C-alpha cells in the first residue's frame, strides 16, 4: 500500500481544509476497521489519509430542541453506553451492540458505517427507520440531506470528495413512539448480518398504529425502507392477525426483490421472523416508561 501523506487534525475546519486541498487523493479514516483492510488488499488507493478520530466535536451525542444529534465520530461502544438513548431508542443500542466484536465497536464509528454503505451495515436500518438527516460540511457550505437520499448504491453515497459527514440527527421520540431492532447472523459475535430489520412505531392510545417505518439491511444493494408494508399497518390495530398479514407482505416484497439469488428462498422465510421480533421490540420500547399507557 502506498501512503504518501498522513494527517491527524484536531478540529473539523482543519480536516475540511485538507479535504478541499487533496480532493480525490484523500481518504478519511476514523475507526479504520474497513479502510485499512481495503487499502492493504489494494482495493482502495489512498495516497493521503486524514484521521478524524481525534476531533472531539464529532464525538458528541446531544439533545438539541426536538432533535437528537449524534456526531459521526461516535463509536458503537459510545452508542451502547449512551444514557440518553436508553428506552425508546433501544433499537439503536441493540444495533450498535450487534456490530462486530468489542474491539471493533471500540474503534468503528457510525459515520464510517453510513459512508461505507455496506448492504449489511447494521446501523443504517435503525437510522433509516428514524427518518434521519445527515449534516455534511465542506469549506463553503453546511448541508442537510436525508439518509434515504444519501444512499445511492452498494458502497456508494452522495458525498463529494471535499465533503465530510459530521452529524446524524433525528426527531426525539415521545410517548407512544419507539424503535426496535433485530438481526439474523450466523453466529453471535463478529457476525455479518444476513438480515437486519429496524422498526419505528408510533401507536395511539387505543393501540392502533399511527405510523410505522420499517428498514431492512442485507436485503438489497443498500439499506432500504419497506413502504408497502408500512402503508398496510397505518391506522390498523396491532394484533396477531395484522402482524401475520404484514409479515406476509414483507415476504412477498423480499421475494420479488431477491429473485434469481440463491439466498432468496431462505431470506423470504427468515425475514418474516426477523421482522416480527423487531416489531415486538418496537412495541415494548414504545411503552418503556412506567405510567405510560403505551
Amino acid at each position, binding site marked *: 500500500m502506498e501512503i504518501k501523506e498522513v494527517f491527524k487534525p484536531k478540529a473539523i475546519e482543519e480536516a475540511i481544509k485538507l479535504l478541499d486541498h487533496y480532493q480525490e487523493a484523500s481518504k478519511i479514516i476514523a475507526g479504520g476497521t474497513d479502510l485499512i483492510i481495503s487499502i492493504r488488499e489494494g482495493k482502495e488507493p489512498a495516497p493521503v*489519509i486524514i484521521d478524524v478520530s481525534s476531533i472531539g466535536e464529532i464525538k458528541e451525542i446531544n439533545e438539541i430542541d426536538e432533535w437528537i444529534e449524534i456526531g459521526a465520530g461516535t463509536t458503537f461502544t459510545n452508542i451502547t453506553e449512551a444514557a440518553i438513548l436508553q428506552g425508546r431508542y433501544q433499537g439503536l443500542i441493540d444495533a450498535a451492540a450487534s456490530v462486530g466484536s*468489542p474491539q471493533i465497536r471500540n474503534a468503528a464509528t457510525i459515520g464510517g458505517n453510513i459512508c461505507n454503505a455496506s448492504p449489511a451495515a447494521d446501523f443504517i436500518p435503525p437510522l433509516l427507520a428514524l427518518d434521519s438527516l445527515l449534516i455534511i460540511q465542506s469549506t463553503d457550505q453546511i448541508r442537510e440531506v436525508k439518509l434515504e437520499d444519501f444512499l445511492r448504491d452498494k458502497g456508494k453515497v452522495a458525498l463529494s470528495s471535499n465533503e465530510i459527514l459530521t452529524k446524524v440527527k433525528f426527531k426525539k421520540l415521545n410517548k407512544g413512539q419507539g424503535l426496535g431492532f433485530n438481526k439474523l447472523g450466523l453466529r453471535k*459475535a463478529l457476525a455479518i448480518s444476513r438480515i437486519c430489520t429496524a422498526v419505528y412505531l408510533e401507536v395511539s392510545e387505543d393501540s392502533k398504529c399511527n405510523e410505522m417505518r420499517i428498514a431492512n439491511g442485507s436485503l438489497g444493494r443498500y439499506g432500504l425502507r419497506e413502504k408497502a408494508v408500512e402503508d398496510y399497518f397505518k391506522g390498523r390495530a396491532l394484533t396477531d392477525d395484522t402482524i401475520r398479514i404484514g409479515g406476509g407482505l414483507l415476504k412477498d416484497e423480499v421475494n420479488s426483490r431477491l429473485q434469481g439469488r440463491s439466498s432468496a428462498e431462505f431470506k423470504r422465510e427468515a425475514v418474516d421472523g426477523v421482522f416480527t421480533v423487531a416489531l415486538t421490540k418496537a412495541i415494548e420500547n414504545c411503552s418503556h416508561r412506567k405510567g405510560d399507557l403505551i
Partner: protein
Amino acid sequence: MKKISLKINGKEYNVEIEKDMRLLDLLRDQLHLTGTKEGCGEGECGACTVIMDGVTVNSCMVLAFQADGSEIITIEGLDKGDKLHPIQKAFLDEGAVQCGFCIPGMVLSAKALLDKKPSPSRKEIREGISGNLCRCTGYNKIVDAIDKASQYLKEEGEEK
C-alpha cells in the same frame, strides 16, 4: 517517514514510522514487543488486541500514525518484574493456556473487561472475549480463569 510520540506500557517513545505502518507492525517489528500476535490481519481473531487509551482495539486495524499521543498497554506491560499480573496467574492456575497464541489478546480483553466491571457474570465474560478466537481450549477454561482473576483482583484490592 513520520515522527510520532506515544506511551507504551508506561514508557514514553519517540519513534520514526513508515506512513503505511500499522500499530501492530510498530509494536512487533520496530519495538520488538512481540507478545502482540498477528493472526488474521482483518479484525476477526483478536490475537493482536492491545489496550489503546483505555479500550481494546485490534492493532492490525490501527495505522501507527493514528496512535500519536496515545497510551498503549500490551501484554508486556502487565507483569511487575517477577510477579505475574493476577489475570496471568489465574490463566495458569486454571490451565486456560494451550498453544498460547491467542492468550496475550485474551488477557488484555479480560483486563479491559475487569477494569470496567470487576465482578462480571459468565455471560458478560463470554461477551467480553467475543472478539478473541481460541482454537485450542473450547473457551470454558478461559472463562473459568477470568472468573478466578476477578476474585484475585478483589483479594489484592482488600490487601491494599
